[in-house]
């Protein structure tokens, strides 16, 4: 844990300074998670503030130190989910709109060093965002936390408060859907050639 439970207790009693310290300690981590989940750097700060507002108003309910981090993650998941629901900007532009070239470019970045790094990074972001938009917001967040953030199943179990098997099934299905879309766009043969090239 990045802060002592004493600090949390002080914040619970209305100590604004203690709350500021908690925010400062977790801000970067929370903003990183939000950035990966929503994929829109310009909105990350806004969603992060929403997370900390929710933390502020629900801090009084916290009883034990060990649940603080899973709980903060849950607030982050919920705020990101609300953001994604509100801004269904890309729902209509699903994988059908994703050109093969776009995916191939993303592959190229994943496999080798690209010339113009920033442009390529943007393409990777857009491609993965588009791939993730083929699953529900809930699955998208879950998949991002597991595959991008690298959270373990145990950690996810605490955040979602569901058993490991249910999570495995859900992750598997979401991943399969993303894989299917990825294959639909490029096809297995074109990828194999590209992959071998990259290897």
């Amino acid at each position: 844990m990045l802060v002592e439970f004493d600090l949390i207790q002080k914040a619970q009693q209305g100590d604004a300074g203690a709350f500021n310290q908690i925010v400062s300690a977790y801000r970067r981590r929370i903003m990183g998670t939000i950035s990966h989940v929503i994929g829109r750097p310009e909105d990350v700060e806004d969603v992060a503030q929403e997370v900390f507002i929710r933390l502020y108003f629900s801090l009084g309910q916290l009883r034990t130190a060990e649940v603080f981090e899973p709980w903060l993650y849950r607030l982050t998941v919920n705020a990101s989910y609300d953001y994604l629901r509100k801004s269904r900007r890309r729902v209509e532009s699903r994988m059908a709109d994703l050109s093969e070239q776009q995916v191939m470019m993303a592959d190229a970045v994943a496999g080798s060093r690209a010339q113009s790094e920033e442009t390529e990074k943007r393409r990777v972001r857009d491609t993965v965002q588009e791939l993730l938009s083929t699953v529900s917001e809930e699955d998208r967040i879950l998949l991002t936390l597991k595959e991008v953030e690298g959270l373990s199943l145990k950690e996810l179990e605490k955040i979602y408060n569901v058993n490991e098997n249910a999570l495995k099934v859900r992750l598997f299905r979401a991943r399969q859907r993303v894989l299917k879309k990825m294959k639909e766009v490029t096809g297995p043969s074109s990828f194999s050639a590209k992959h071998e090239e990259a290897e």
Partner: protein
Amino acid sequence: MKRQSEKRGIMISNKPMEQEDSNELRLDKMFRAYLAACPIPEASANFMPALWARIEAREVSTNWFGRVAKMLVTAALAASVILGLMISSINQSSSFFNGTFVEALRADHQSTLEPLHLDRISQLEPE
């Protein structure tokens, strides 16, 4: 090379293994590339002041809604008390429902029923 699917403890069936492996690897690679491609934005200098401003704004709106809700509850209680009092006073003042239906009928038709009174009939009997 260990299969990704085995690592996940999940069976993948009906597909050539190599192709599945390569697709799984490809997706993993894309996720790794995505992690590297997603910048973690630095919080602006205005982050904390804006956060506190939003907290205060929400506190104000929460208090306002709380006050309105309290007022509505009080008004509803007052209205129900007034209505209760009105209904009870109407019941008391009305004689409409006093007594049974038969009693009310008898009161209304006292004169019509008079000849049938036993005392009158008894008077007609021969001594």
